[in-house]
């Protein structure tokens, strides 16, 4: 009887689902093969600067317009901090009721103070318990000139007391004749800088948090992909600790390492000549 029910489920529900998968897949193939073509037609009509173009492009959900000529003139003076999750999305949750979204907000405040003490201007993607979309957060970063982006996370796994820095996986760089980068791959021209930035901060972190890796890791982090700036994710281990105080005790060290890492990265902050070029 149970078998019959299971078969019924398989036949009546899973079979159409599989057909749906095929249809979705072919649709996905078609749309992905169209992406480079659509990036050839900038939605804003002409190459626009990051502050104006990026936020418009983000809300339109199409292409980020980054003019490399304008970026070249600026040095690093802004740090965009992204406390991950928030609102209805608590992120990682520990058995002791620890919520990632709460901790990263407090952590961001500490990192902010450390960065401001070093003379940097700080922009946050969220101030309270709200949950902007990935694109909204990237738009906040892409609207700044001379900025780096740091997204803050607490993991579910890993050795408690360690911190990992992540850089986005390689993305094929596609630019059109106007030098515009598609929004979907805004991180591509910045990967080399992100790697340098990530390694510097991971180097600062490993001095304080033994057991952490010595160089930044590579991962396909969604938040980093649409960010047109040197961008890293910092993930602290972990929500599995019994007492939240264990993570809170790490916060000053993490904040200090990030602030010193950003200061050390400042001289290297030379934006590539063209969006396709890598340092």
């Amino acid at each position, binding site marked *: 009887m149970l078998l019959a029910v299971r078969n019924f489920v398989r036949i009546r529900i899973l079979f159409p689902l599989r057909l749906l998968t095929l249809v979705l*897949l072919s649709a996905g193939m078609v749309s992905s093969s169209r992406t480079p073509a659509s990036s050839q037609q900038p939605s804003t009509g002409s190459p626009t600067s990051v502050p104006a173009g990026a936020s418009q492009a983000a809300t339109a959900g199409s292409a980020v317009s980054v003019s490399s000529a304008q970026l070249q003139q600026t040095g690093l003076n802004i740090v965009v901090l992204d406390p991950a999750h928030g609102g209805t999305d608590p992120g990682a949750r520990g058995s002791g009721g620890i919520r990632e979204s709460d901790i990263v907000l407090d952590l961001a405040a500490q990192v902010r103070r450390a960065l401001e003490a070093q003379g940097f201007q700080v922009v946050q993607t969220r101030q309270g318990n709200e949950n902007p979309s990935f694109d909204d957060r990237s738009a906040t970063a892409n609207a700044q000139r001379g900025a780096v982006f740091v997204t803050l996370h607490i993991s579910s796994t890993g050795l408690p007391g360690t911190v990992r820095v992540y850089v986005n996986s390689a993305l094929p760089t596609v630019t059109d004749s106007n030098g515009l980068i598609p929004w979907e791959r805004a991180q591509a021209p910045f990967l080399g800088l992100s790697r340098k930035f990530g390694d510097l901060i991971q180097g600062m972190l490993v001095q304080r948090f033994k057991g952490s890796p010595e160089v930044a890791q590579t991962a396909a*982090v969604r938040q980093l992909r649409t960010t047109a700036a040197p961008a890293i994710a910092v993930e602290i281990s*972990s929500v599995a600790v019994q007492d939240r105080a264990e993570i809170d005790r790490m916060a000053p060290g993490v904040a200090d390492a990030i602030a010193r890492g950003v200061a050390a990265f400042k001289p290297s902050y030379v934006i590539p000549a063209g969006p396709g070029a890598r340092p």
Partner: protein
Amino acid sequence: MTPRWRVRLIGGLIIAVVAAAIYFPILRRRVKRAARLQQQSEEQARRELTQPVVINPGDPRVKTKLFWGSDTDDSTLVPVTVELPLSNDPVLRSKQVLNTLLAGPVDADLRTLPPDAVLLAFYLLPDGTAVADFSEALATSIPSGIASEQLAVDSIVRTLEANVPQVQRLKILIHGQEMETLAGHLDLTGTFVVNSKPVQVPPSDKTAAAAPGTLTPEKAPGKLAQPERKP
């Protein structure tokens, strides 16, 4: 008609009715059984189409590398070699290795994928792009975080890389849908590079390796999150 004949006729009719009354249920049972048999064979055929692929003992036993967690460092993967009878067909072979990976290692702590996750479908397109459709449990039961999500995808990618050379890229779907992330962090909108070198593929297909929208790792293929292992 004489009364004697009338009695015989009525007697004959009564016998016929009694015989029919006895035979009818038997006949009905036979018709039912026949119908059930037919239905069963249809069901059997459908079940064979949708059933998770079981290992066929007739296939040649080959050394299969499965990537599970390490017992010394829970952020790295360690290949475990087991001998499994694997099909030569790349789709069947992929299903067999992924189902074995999902079934998990002997030590449950070394799992990289949730125990309730199921592989619903697996397709291989002519250009070497594979599509693996997992049940929702893969996204909902996995511990949220960059490290844990990366480890899960990496174990799938590297297990396919080690055992199915025909798979060049992998697209992961959840319950037939394309997801933005696995569980809030890891990007599932692109494809993951499995084998960068095409194997037994005609030269015309090689250009497909640079298909747009692919997420390619910076270093070696299939090592998206391979953390540096320090002595």
